[in-house]
């Protein structure tokens, strides 16, 4: 996917000026505020399970090479195929090759963020294959030519009216009189439209929430049932998953499942959690004849060896997005690449380079709400600081900010100069604050006064007054 992360400030400004988006985001954050405590109150063991979930992921990553090999062997023993892919293009090509070998024309897809990451749909469409997203939100976005703005609620930025118009624009056979005023009707319209696709598809592609090494199993966690139809009806099932999705055991998966839906959607568990192991067996009346796992690296093995290793624990629940006040103000698209919000601010520079995504780690108040809710305890603010350290080291930040900081630090580390300078500066500001005690405009601080008054100093510094006592 082409990135607009280098235009973050403009993207953010546009998002802030979009009242529809603001309303949708504020609804999400309000629901999260209410829903999350309600669901967690019912599971007093949540924090203990969360500790275990974090340990499971850490252990999995610490032994990733071993578990990948075990996984591969078990997939093969169950009659499946494993395709190792270094890059997104390699993965696209591997998937295309599977399609070509089957003479496939129609592909149905379950929700997969990794497929967004490698722009799989564009690749396959360019090969004259028909690719249909089947998750309701993803289907709507595909019609609109948009990308997901949240990892588990991809169409969170849209309103019902917008969806209704999208269907009218794209469903040619839609009766003009059909009532699309209710979410129910829209859901039914999508169901009707996609049913035929599921039944006619040659290939089903799903992502994976987890890959279980001990059994060679791909686990998907869904609500709509589209993922299961995608991996049950077509003759070929392709699992597209990145290497860090590996976990050692089924029991590990069960612990992770206990934190996943609660963190993602505020459900106890999603409607469907499916453990798929290989193709159709002797005597089976349904299920895919071929089972492929496309294992994607795309830079993750390198991330594993660096200071952003912790981010690979991520299970893509989206809790950090739902709770983040910055995400809540601007939504996911403003971040400019596949992953928005706190997780995106850490991942995007790793994938597309810090130069093109410098703003993302900076555009955080480091409030820590993300780390608070993360079910695998990723220290997101620390990781954001690490990117800032690199930015600073590479002098990517604006010179004015760097010089301002340097000047401040120069004074602050010289108390004998700092005190008189502070005394003078505060006296001027105090005087400028006048009878009101605040300033509406302040040279060199437009970033502040553009939207806020600047409270003038009370007058006199504490250190001076204390010494005078």
């Amino acid at each position: 996917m082409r990135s607009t992360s280098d235009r973050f400030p403009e993207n953010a400004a546009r998002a802030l000026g979009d009242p529809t988006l603001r309303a949708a985001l504020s609804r999400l954050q309000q629901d999260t505020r209410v829903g999350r405590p309600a669901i967690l109150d019912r599971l007093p063991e949540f924090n203990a399970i969360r500790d275990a979930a974090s340990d499971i992921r850490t252990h999995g990553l610490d032994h990733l090479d071993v578990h990948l090999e075990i996984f591969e062997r078990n997939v093969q023993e169950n009659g499946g195929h494993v395709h190792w892919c270094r890059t997104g293009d390699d993965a696209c090509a591997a998937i295309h090759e599977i399609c070509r070998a089957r003479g496939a024309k129609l592909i149905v897809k379950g929700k997969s963020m990794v497929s967004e990451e490698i722009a799989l749909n564009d690749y396959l469409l360019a090969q004259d294959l028909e690719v249909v997203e089947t998750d309701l939100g993803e289907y709507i976005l595909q019609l609109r030519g948009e990308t997901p703005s949240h990892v588990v609620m991809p169409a969170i930025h849209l309103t019902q009216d917008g969806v209704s118009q999208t269907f009218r624009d794209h469903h040619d056979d839609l009766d003009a009189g059909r009532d699309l005023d209710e979410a129910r009707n829209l859901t039914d319209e999508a169901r009707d439209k996609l049913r035929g696709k599921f039944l006619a598809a040659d290939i089903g592609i799903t992502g994976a929430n987890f890959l279980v090494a001990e059994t060679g199993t791909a686990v998907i966690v869904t609500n709509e049932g589209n993922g299961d139809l995608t991996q049950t009806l077509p003759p070929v099932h392709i699992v597209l998953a990145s290497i860090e999705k590996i976990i050692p055991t089924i029991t590990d998966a069960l612990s992770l499942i206990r934190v996943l839906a609660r963190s993602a959607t505020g459900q106890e568990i999603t409607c469907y959690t499916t453990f798929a192991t290989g193709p159709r067996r002797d005597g089976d009346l349904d299920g895919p004849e071929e089972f492929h796992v496309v294992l994607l690296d795309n830079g993750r093995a390198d991330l594993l060896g660096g200071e952003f290793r912790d981010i690979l624990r991520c299970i893509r629940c989206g809790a950090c997005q739902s709770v983040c006040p910055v995400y809540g103000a601007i939504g996911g698209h403003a971040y400019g690449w596949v992953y928005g919000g706190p997780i995106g601010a850490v991942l995007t520079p790793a994938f597309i380079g810090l130069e093109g995504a410098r703003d993302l780690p900076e555009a955080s108040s480091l409030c820590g709400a993300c780390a608070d809710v993360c079910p695998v305890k990723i220290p997101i603010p620390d990781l954001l600081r690490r990117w800032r350290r690199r930015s600073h080291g590479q002098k990517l930040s604006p010179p004015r900010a760097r010089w301002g900081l340097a000047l401040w630090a120069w004074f602050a580390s010289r108390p004998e100069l700092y005190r008189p300078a502070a005394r003078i500066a505060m006296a001027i500001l105090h005087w400028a604050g006048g009878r009101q005690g605040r300033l509406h405009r302040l040279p060199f601080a437009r970033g502040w006064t553009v939207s806020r008054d600047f409270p003038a100093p009370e007058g006199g510094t504490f250190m001076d007054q204390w010494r005078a006592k």
Partner: protein
Amino acid sequence: MTTARDDILNRIRRANGGIDRKNAPTSHPVPARALGDHAVLVGRFIDMAREAAAGISRVNHRSDIPMAISAFLAAENLAGEIRISPDPRLETLPWESAPDLSVSAGRARADDPVSVTPAFAGIAETGTLMVHSGPDTPNTLHFLPETHIALLSTEAIVGGYEDAWARLRARFERLPRSVTLITGPSRSSDIERKVQIGVHGPRRLHIVLIDGEEI
């Protein structure tokens, strides 16, 4: 030339080379609500399944199943055309006791409106069913029809997910190709976060619970 596989694995080994590899977690905490005596777990299963928008009918004997299905379909205003798993336990039910039902067995076809399948286990923790694929239990029956009726013996109700997996491992030497934990009918809240029950999977999930007897 190194293969992609070797390259990826080598880079992972290099990345993990210098670190102090963490041991596997020693415990996987199980919530208290997954524990309790059997009667408590049955009650909890029913409460949680209903909360997830599944319906429940209770019968005393397996011979009562056809009538329970018939009554459920009539109450929902649905036709009595049912597709059952080609499982001897289901094929041998006294279907003749419910003459309004027309019964066929096999995998689900595109327009089968109602499926009837066994459920391998019921999990009290979240009111979840465990189903699996196999020659007797085609997977399409769990997902394709608009209405899914699952038959579950109270004997198959367990506390937590781990307990259901333990049962599965005890029953099958080889893990079934597909195992699904089903909790309520399919749903989506992709449009303005309004929950819509019934998307691509079943609109209705009804559980016929057989008290103390195998299906």
